[in-house]
C-alpha cells in the first residue's frame, strides 16, 4: 500500500464527478419514489 497526494486538477475533477454522481443518485431516489406513488398510489387508496 502506498499513498499519493492528489494534484489540484485531480481534486477538482474528483469533486465534480462526486457531485454529479450524488445528483444522479438523488435523482434515482426521487424517480423511484414518484414511480411507486404512481404505480401503487391508486391501489393504496382502496
Amino acid at each position, binding site marked *: 500500500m502506498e499513498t499519493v497526494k492528489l494534484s489540484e486538477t*485531480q481534486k477538482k475533477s474528483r469533486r465534480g*464527478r462526486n457531485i454529479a454522481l450524488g445528483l444522479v443518485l438523488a435523482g434515482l431516489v426521487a424517480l423511484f419514489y414518484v*414511480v411507486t406513488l404512481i404505480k401503487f398510489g391508486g391501489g393504496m387508496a382502496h
Partner: protein
Amino acid sequence: MTLIDNHEAVGMEGAPRLSEASARDYFELLKPRVMSLVVFTAFAGLVLAPGSINPFIGFIAILCIAIGAGASGALNMWYDADIDAVMSRTAKRPIPAGKILPQEALGFGLTLSAFSVIILGLAVNWLAAGLLAFTIFFYVVIYTMWLKRSTPQNIVIGGAAGAFPPMIGWACVTGGVSVESIVLFLIIFLWTPAHFWALALFKMGDYGAVGVPMMPNVCGEATTKRQIVVYALLTALSGICPTLLGFASLGYGAFATVLGLGFVWYSLAVLRMPEGDKRMLPAKKLFAFSIAYLFAIFSALLVDYVIAQVWLNAGGII
C-alpha cells in the same frame, strides 16, 4: 491524501493513474448529439401511439431510452478507441484524448445499459425494455464489433439500431409493435445509408486510414452515389407512408412529399458531383439536409397529430 492500490493502468505501466476526467467527459461518452435525435424520435413514437401514458412515466421512458442509447455510444467508444484516435472527426473523444480509460468507459456503458433497461422494464413495460436491450446489443455487438469493420453494408444493417427508438416509444404506450411503429422504424432505417454515405464520401480519407470498409472506400464513389440516390428515393417514399396508411393527414403527406423531393434533389446533386472532387460540397449539403429532413419529418408527424387532436376535441370530422 488518497490511498491507492498499486495496480497498473493501460498505457501507464508502473505508474499509478489518477483520473482527471470531469463529469462532462463522461457525458461526452454518451454521444449527446446522437442522443438528441434518439430522444426526439422516441418522443414522437410515444406521442403518436394510440392510448395514453402517465406523463411522468412517459418522461421516465424517454429518459431510459436516451440513457440506453448513450450507454451504447459509450460502449461503441470503448470498442472503437483505436480507430477513433486516428480519425480527425473522433480524435478528440474522451478515450483517445486520454481523459477516460477504455475500461472506465466499458464499466460506465455496461452499468448504464443495465440500469436503463431494468428501470424501463420496472416503470413502463418489459416489451419496451426488451426492445431497448436488443437495440443496445444490436448497436454494440452486431454493428460496432462485427459489421463495422467487416462489410460495406455495415451502416445499412447497423442502421436498424438507430431506427428502433420510435418503435420503443410506441411500445411504451401500447405494449406492442404495430404497422405504424414499423413505418416509423422504416423511415429512419432507409434514411441512414444516404445520411452516412454522404459523410463517408467527404471523410473517405479518414475511413481509409483506419481500414473501416465504408461503401466509397470499397465500391468506389460512383457506386456509392448511385446507391445514395436509391436510398433517398426509398426514404422519400417511406416518408409519405404515414398518409398512405391513414395515420397522418393529407397535409402531412404533401409536406413529406416536398421534403422527400428535396432529399432526392440533394442526392442527385451528389450523383452529378465530379469523380475525385476534393471539396465534396454536394455531399456535405446532403449530409446537412438529411439531418434536417429527419427532424422535419418527425416534427411534421407531431404537429399533424396535435392538429388532429385539437380538431377532434373541437368536435370536427377529419
